[in-house]
């Protein structure tokens, strides 16, 4: 009895910490205020920019991450575990560190950026920087899931396909990817969500310029000091998207 009660109290307390703040967002704004915020230029600009950059980032991650995760799920080579570790790194690496690292690499005075600068190419504080930051922090969400999905495809199916006359590319396109597809899709969705929510790395590497680098999270940060309703409206949209993603 006491065992059950103690369990119940701990669980309730925990849910309060998680759920109550999200509910508070909805209590602090009326539907009218929400609708009117949606036509504010700063809100519209942030939404459009976030949607475009997160979509591009996700496509880049899929294109570059699928081959990597496929190879790492199938081929044993020296250094594979190091590459697995490196691709996981952005999950635990603080976004602020990621932002600074990107700046040191591609910024105007960065290791590579200073050369790019000679040719008049500037990455930092552009929309391209937003995308680069998102790719950096969001890629592990796709790669981990894709690697796990490829690993879950029993190699016996691939072997059977081979003995039935399928070439390597046919095995990949007709057997491996279709069987792994549900995992690949859910990994891509997670990556999109993580890209959409990127804040720290973007702020430091891309800055906070409306219409150019000010994605929704950055717009929340900016508008909460001037117009709280715009901030809450953007936050509510992101909460809804987050729920949709994990459902």
């Amino acid at each position, binding site marked *: 009895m006491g065992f059950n009660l103690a369990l119940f109290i701990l669980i309730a307390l925990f849910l309060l910490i998680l759920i109550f703040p999200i509910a508070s967002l909805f209590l602090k704004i009326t539907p009218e205020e929400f609708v009117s915020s949606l036509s504010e230029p700063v809100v519209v600009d942030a939404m459009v920019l976030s949607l475009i950059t997160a979509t591009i980032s996700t496509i880049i991650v899929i294109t570059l991450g699928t081959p990597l995760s496929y190879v790492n799920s199938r081929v044993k080579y020296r250094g594979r575990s190091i590459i697995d570790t490196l691709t996981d790194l952005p999950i635990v690496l603080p976004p602020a560190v990621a932002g600074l690292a990107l700046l040191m690499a591609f910024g105007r005075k960065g290791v590579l950026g200073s050369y790019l600068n000679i040719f008049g190419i500037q990455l930092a504080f552009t929309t391209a920087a937003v995308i680069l930051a998102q790719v950096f922090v969001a890629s592990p969400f796709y790669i981990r899931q894709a690697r796990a999905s490829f690993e879950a495809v029993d190699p016996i199916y691939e*072997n059977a396909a081979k*003995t*039935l006359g399928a070439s390597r590319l046919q095995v990949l396109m007709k057997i491996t990817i279709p069987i792994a597809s549900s995992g690949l899709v859910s990994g891509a969705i997670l990556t999109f969500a993580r890209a959409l929510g990127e804040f720290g790395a973007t702020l430091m590497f891309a800055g906070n310029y409306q219409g150019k680098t000010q994605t929704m999270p950055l717009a929340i940060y900016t508008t909460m000091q001037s117009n709280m309703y715009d901030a809450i409206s953007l936050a509510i949209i992101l909460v809804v998207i987050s729920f949709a993603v994990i459902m």
Partner: protein
Amino acid sequence: MLSIDIKKELRDFTQEISLSVSEGETLVLIGENGAGKSTLLNMISGLLIPDSGTISLNQRVLFSADEGINIPADERNIGHLFQSYALFPHYSVYDNIAFGLRCRKTKKAEIEERVNVQIEAMHLSDLRDINVGSLSGGQRQRVALARALVLDPDLLLLDEPLAAVDVLMQTEMRRELRHRMKETNIPSIIVTHTFADALELSDRIAIIQEGRIVQEGSPEEIFNDPATDFVAKFTGMENLFRGKSMQRADGEAEIRVGSLVIHTVTPLEGDVYVAIRGEELIFSKEALDSTARNVFSGIVSEIKWNGVLSRISVNLGDIQLSGLITRQSLTRLKIERGDPIHVSFKASAVHIFPYTS
């Protein structure tokens, strides 16, 4: 005809196999788990590469380490059935069977025709558009066979074709499989770990132990004359003991097992294994005056009624012998546990194998 002569270093031992399978022949490969059976099939179908040696099928060299030939799996035209059948879970029965032809870019009309022939032959018409996830074990086996046979393979490899089937269904499926194998007349290798499968399905049996073939022959030969203690155990010889063999002047050998002396004829000397099949033992209340060279007396330690045949165990002091007798004999002899009894067997019923530690 398939000829194999290969060598491959595995984790626990070296696999070293020479084998051939003739036109229309079914070879059954028996061995314990981990003896290298599936590895061998994978090397034949091209999923694994041997370290050295050659594999050829109908005059075509599939693999030759010396000549640097290694035809990839998708060009060998060998049907390989996996233990779990490996039906593609995202395809229907039809699409599974059509897979190989589609990979070869065969014309649509021809695919349709050839797949339908197989679907008819395997009685799968009703299941044509069903996803393979909902099939029974027997249906899966038929789809897997159809998927391989539609490509007219030059050789069939079957890896434990009955292991994934319910015990009650095994007898039926074993019969059906044998029937289909005989029908197609394609040379084939079947891998199994039970002697019952081997007896039913094989023209010839090869027994594999730690990567090497320890005996090869017809089912009768192997059953009657197992070459090693390992094969003997596999064929169900219950009475297996360690002993010491000594040759006598008259050509017979005396095998000491504990305090007992068993008479037989063998060229072996020194440490050996002695095995006697349970059904070769003759039990009697009185000592028999017969031609049986070995007569011992002991105490009945156990009688276990076991269906058609009963098993009777006799304690001879140092060893225990187990024999099978019919229900009628049991009733006639009126033997009970604890009774004194005589056990006899012929010198020719004694199998002797070299001792391997």
